[in-house]
């Protein structure tokens, strides 16, 4: 096992497409790091540079103690799981898993042992003689992971391995990957655009946007303390409510819907700002305190319900626990915990936290 260290990595594709701009990142030994971002933000490119499938335009990539910029993919001691599995269609499951070891001249008995072990771990022992075509999507995904496991690499790389599976299977496989990681404790880098996958799997989430890292942190950290407006709106569902605001007095911000208190110890802000409040941080209040709000539309989600309405002039969503109360077209009052109010710079989008 090894750590991965990226320093000032850049990737420019022919035609001057800047896919990755100046990324520095440390993936600690044994950690499960998730690269999260919208489609086209350069996460696959970054992963493929670590794998050696793309050249690195500038910067250094270290795996363990070794700079691997100029080292062939096969020599980097990594294994990769692809989105569409990339199994060899003409080889049996056993041969698919054994192929990499065979090419490295591993003794037959050792190959057999490792393939059987991995197959047992992934519950695919019964399919070893089958061709990939005769397997379901989930089984193929397991074989693809088995192929990575038998290699016993320093680092596992996953490029959206679950996005070809149906919703139910995705949840199962997600748990399985988590279990596998807990068991093997291998350094893993996992690319996804799905925040739920990222939040559930990661020790460390790396949120990317337009080729840059927006924030690196534990899942709870990026959720609770988003470093930018982008992270704030990308993580959490439904997305964080954003509205313009202006700091009138210390610890209080003027919004289109009314005055909201905020934690002046956390944020140093003045003048025009962007205010962010998560739908689930908003409460309905009794009596006359709080900001008036009328729900125009209510979505029932079972455990919670989403109230859509206008906060002054800004449309917002409020998520509250389901209850018998009728909210549609009724004026209620909303309060927000000062600790749950986020402030961002209006122009740069960065968090104004000190």
């Amino acid at each position, binding site marked *: 096992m090894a750590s991965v260290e990226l320093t000032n990595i850049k990737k420019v594709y022919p035609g001057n497409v800047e896919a990755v701009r100046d990324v520095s990142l440390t993936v600690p030994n044994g950690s499960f790091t998730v690269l999260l971002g919208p489609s086209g933000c350069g996460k696959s490119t970054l992963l493929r540079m670590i794998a050696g*499938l793309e050249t690195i335009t500038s910067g250094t990539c270290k795996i363990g103690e070794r700079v691997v910029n100029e080292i062939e*993919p*096969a020599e980097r001691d990594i*294994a990769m799981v692809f989105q569409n599995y990339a*199994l060899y269609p*003409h080889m049996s499951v056993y041969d698919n898993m054994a*192929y*990499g070891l065979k*090419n490295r001249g591993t003794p037959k008995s050792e190959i057999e042992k490792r393939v059987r072990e991995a197959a047992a771990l992934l519950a695919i022992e019964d399919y070893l003689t089958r061709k990939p075509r005769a397997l379901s999507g989930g089984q193929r995904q397991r074989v693809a992971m088995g192929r990575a496991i038998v290699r016993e690499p320093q680092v596992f790389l996953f490029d959206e391995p679950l996005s070809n599976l149906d919703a139910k299977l995705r949840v199962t496989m997600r748990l399985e990957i988590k279990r596998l990681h807990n068991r093997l404790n291998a350094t893993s880098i996992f690319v996804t655009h799905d925040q739920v996958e990222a939040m559930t799997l990661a020790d460390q989430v790396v949120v990317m946007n337009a080729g840059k890292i927006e924030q690196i942190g534990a899942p709870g950290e990026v959720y609770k303390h988003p470093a930018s407006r982008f992270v704030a709106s990308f993580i959490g569902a439904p997305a964080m409510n954003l509205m313009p605001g202006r700091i009138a007095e210390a610890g209080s911000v003027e919004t289109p819907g009314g005055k909201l208190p905020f934690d002046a110890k956390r944020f140093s802000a003045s003048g025009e700002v962007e205010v962010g409040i998560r739908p689930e941080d908003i409460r309905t209040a009794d009596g006359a305190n709080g900001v008036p709000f009328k729900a125009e539309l209510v979505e029932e989600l079972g455990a919670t319900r989403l109230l859509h309405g206008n906060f002054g002039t800004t449309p917002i969503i409020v998520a509250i626990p389901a209850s018998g109360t009728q909210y549609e077209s009724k004026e209620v009052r909303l309060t927000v915990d000062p600790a749950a109010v986020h402030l961002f710079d209006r122009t740069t989008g960065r968090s104004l936290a000190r």
Partner: protein
Amino acid sequence: MVEHRGWSRYIPYLVLSLGVAIVAFPVYLCFVGSTHPQDVIANGNMPITPGPLFFETYYKTLFVGSSGSTREPVSTMLLNSFIMASMIAIGKIAISIISAYSVVYFKFPFRMAAFWLIFVTLMLPVEVRIYPTYKIASDLHLLDSYAGLTIPLIASATATLFFRQFFLTIPDELVEASKLDGAGPLRFFWDTVLPLSRTNIAALFVILFIYGWNQYLWPILITTRDDMQTIVIGIKKMIVTADALTEWNVVLATAMLAMLPPVMVVILMQRWFVKGLVETEK
């Protein structure tokens, strides 16, 4: 599928049977002719049922040859044709699969230029470049040799194009997975590209074998010795201008025999590529 009811569902069978009959009747007549004595055919009244001389005629054709201008037994011609057609088919497949592989999977300067040069040769079949090709072949002392018969026909733009299109459908991830699995370009070719191309190779082999088998113009130029003669040329040479001197029964037997190897290849390869179709999937 269109479903028919009542008598109308026999119409497809009727049409098909008619088609088969139209194609098969001349072949049948050819067979019938090859089993009658020479003079029966020569007097113009072709019988409709097989005659008594099946074994004699075919023995003579295969191992003795006609008594006309060519005295080579047809077995030699069959062998020559078979060697020529196989070498052309295998040679074309080998060369074009390798050139397609290099054009698709390697980045080198003038890669597309190389591809277009290959492509342009589509417009230069042997018939067009026959004089320079003959000159080169004779300068290299390739006359009356299998090399001379086959090499000038081997370079193939069609097959290269065909393999290129197929390689472009192999997912990039497979190349990448191979790279990570420690397979270099040669390993990837042997372990992945070749097995995946089985079906295509079988289909191409059938087409190219028949193409080689039917060659006429080039073999007639490049061979002078009777023992290098191919069967297509043999048939032509057996037909003497004076009709009465032509041993029509032998000619017809030769024609029958000339049909067999291509038919065998089609039947054998068909089993192969149906198997390939079922088993491979990208």
